[in-house]
């Protein structure tokens, strides 16, 4: 019978490297992270290389993604947030490409094992924690100690006793919620596709009328895979927009919005 649905998330060393007790092997996770970065760089430079007045298809996709992220930052963090455009754009493109590349059916080629980098909590947590630290640093650099008024919304004094602990807990849980959301979505989505796929293959291999019936769940999987592509995009978008909203908090405290 087929392997465990969790087998696809296994991290295997490709080039084993050890320094003392530290394991810094080049793994399939590192390989796919490089592939994601290379694919994103290739895609964007290809789109930007032509610079025609009437854009080609590649150029318009690049321009659309640029405008899309710029609009997102402007609406969530104001014009001042545009200073962080390169950061948010990089984050968005990296998450988007790693989500998408993990969904491509590359496993049909022999010896290619597709791997979704964002289905590992440590990767998403590193990204989210970086965002968290940056928000704190931007806030303190901009407002000094007044940044800590982010924990005290403008409410009557007795309410503050309840609200300040809640605000602190919700602020500290940001990196966790940001990372767990992305990781759990990817993990659950890929596991689901694998389980459904195993079911269809088992049904098709059963022979007779069952093989014929297996067309119906196969078509359903195509729809589920399309939904997974939507989720892959949506999660990248949510990750980027929440980064913008956190940046907005740090830039403007409770002044407006």
């Amino acid at each position, binding site marked *: 019978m087929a392997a465990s649905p*969790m087998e696809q998330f296994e991290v295997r060393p490709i080039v084993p490297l050890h320094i003392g007790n530290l394991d810094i092997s080049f793994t399939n996770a590192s390989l796919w992270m490089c592939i994601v970065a290379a694919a994103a760089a290739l895609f964007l430079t290809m789109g930007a290389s032509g610079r025609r007045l009437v854009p080609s298809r590649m150029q318009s996709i690049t321009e659309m993604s640029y405008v899309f992220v710029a609009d*997102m930052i402007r*609406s*969530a963090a104001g014009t001042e947030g545009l200073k962080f455009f390169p950061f948010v754009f990089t984050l968005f493109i990296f998450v988007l490409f790693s989500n998408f590349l993990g969904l491509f059916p590359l496993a049909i080629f022999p010896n290619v094992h597709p791997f979704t980098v964002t289905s590992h909590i440590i990767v998403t947590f590193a990204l989210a924690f970086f965002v968290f630290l940056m928000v704190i640093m931007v806030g303190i650099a901009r407002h000094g100690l007044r940044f800590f008024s982010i924990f005290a919304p403008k409410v009557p004094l007795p309410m503050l006793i309840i609200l300040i602990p809640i605000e602190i807990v919700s602020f500290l849980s940001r990196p966790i*919620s940001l990372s*767990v*959301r992305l*990781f*759990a*979505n990817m*993990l*659950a989505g890929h596991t689901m596709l694998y389980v459904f796929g195993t079911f269809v293959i088992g049904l098709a291999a059963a022979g007779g009328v069952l093989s014929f019936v297996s067309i119906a769940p196969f078509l359903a999987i195509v729809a589920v895979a399309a939904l997974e592509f939507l989720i892959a995009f*949506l999660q990248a*978008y*949510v990750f980027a*927009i*929440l980064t913008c*909203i956190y940046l907005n908090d740090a830039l403007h405290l409770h002044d407006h919005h």
Partner: protein
Amino acid sequence: MDVEAARYLGAGLASIALIGAGVGIGIIFGNYLSGALRNPGAAQGQFTNLLVGFALCEFTGLLGVVMAFIILFT
């Protein structure tokens, strides 16, 4: 009860959290749609809030799934 059986039961119970996420996401999108049909002009401006609400709501359900995975695979 044997530990292995209890573990599967626990993972199943942890997945119940997804009921709440499903209901919540339904409420969010349903209310957004009814609001958007009443006032289509304001709909575009609230799209960000829609997605943020969706993300926050989905997170609570996903915590249950992660809990199930932790129970099953550790």
